[in-house]
């Protein structure tokens, strides 16, 4: 399968891992075309979409987890984007269930999904700061300033 995919996808790194898994590393522009190829070669199921913030490498990886029922294979597609302006085309046309994941990632990491018509906030209430799951967001300081510190918590050395 990996050999076949390597032939189909030029410029995408395909690594085999642990028997029935493989990892594909690509970039933001090529992510959707990679997904289209994968879906047509048997990876029918989109398990989820997540995002990993690699702050030291100044990179944001939008990660798609796919599963193939026909080949019993698991594929991870890592779309590497620039951290300052993360941008990936939407996977909505391939899998409609991507909508909720894309909305969530947009809210939590600030990744722009071009072509997605509805990226309105999903979980957070009236959020004004930078997206909270980015590594440069200081959640402790936020909690301290937004909700106050209760006496005794500091001394306990939590």
């Amino acid at each position, binding site marked *: 399968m990996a050999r076949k995919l390597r032939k189909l996808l030029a410029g995408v790194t395909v690594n085999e891992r642990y028997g029935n898994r493989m990892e594909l590393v690509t970039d933001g522009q090529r992510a959707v075309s990679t997904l289209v190829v994968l879906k047509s070669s048997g990876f029918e199921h989109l398990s989820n979409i997540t995002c990993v913030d690699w702050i030291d490498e100044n990179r944001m990886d939008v990660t798609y987890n796919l599963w193939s029922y026909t080949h019993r294979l698991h594929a991870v597609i890592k779309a590497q984007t620039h951290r300052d302006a993360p941008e990936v085309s939407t996977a909505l046309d391939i899998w409609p269930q991507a909508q909720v994941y894309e909305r969530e990632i947009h809210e939590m990491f600030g990744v722009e999904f071009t072509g997605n018509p509805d990226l309105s906030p999903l979980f957070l*209430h009236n959020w004004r700061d930078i997206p909270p799951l980015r590594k440069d967001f200081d959640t402790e300081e936020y909690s301290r300033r937004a909700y106050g510190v*209760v006496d005794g918590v500091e001394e306990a050395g939590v």
Partner: protein
Amino acid sequence: MLKVSREEILDGKFERVLNFFRSRSLWMLYYCTGCGAVELPPTMTSRFDMERFGIGPMATPRQADILLVTGYVSVKTLKRIVRSYEQMPEPKWVVGFGSCPVNGGIYWKSYATINQLDRYIPVDLSLNGCMPRPQAVIDGFVNLMEMIKKGEAVGYKKYRLNYEWYKRNQAEVLERTEPVLRPGIASVAKAQETKKKISIVEGVK
């Protein structure tokens, strides 16, 4: 029909009698915000049997006496808790369940959960522990009954007296207009925008 004179009401005797009866029949609205909800089924059912103290579960805020907040309170939940609390008829009491409503518990660093419930609605009794066992819950309720009987549980009066303070605290969290970590950014951007608009208007002239 029980007739009570004005003097008796002012005297507080009638209130004391009422408090005695109130403490014996409590309907509890359990707002299962967090993990604390798992301790409630054993507390309610035959093993520990909460009902022998006259405490029963109630489905709607309009008929409940106790609001039980079980576990961590996220900002979105806080909005609903305030709404439920304000729907409840007086007298009403709030029990904070577990360590999260007291000081944030293990979630005190979280951006999504508030740290102290007492700042937003008056908490009469806090049960700490993560989670409190059913024995601790029942012990807490017996304490609350004792407090109600003595007229010490006055959270709803506190809420009425300090309504502005509570409302201000709620609004601070729920109706935020500026970023918390870099306050002023929004207002600076706004000022720049208005400046731009002004300069455009001047340019037109």
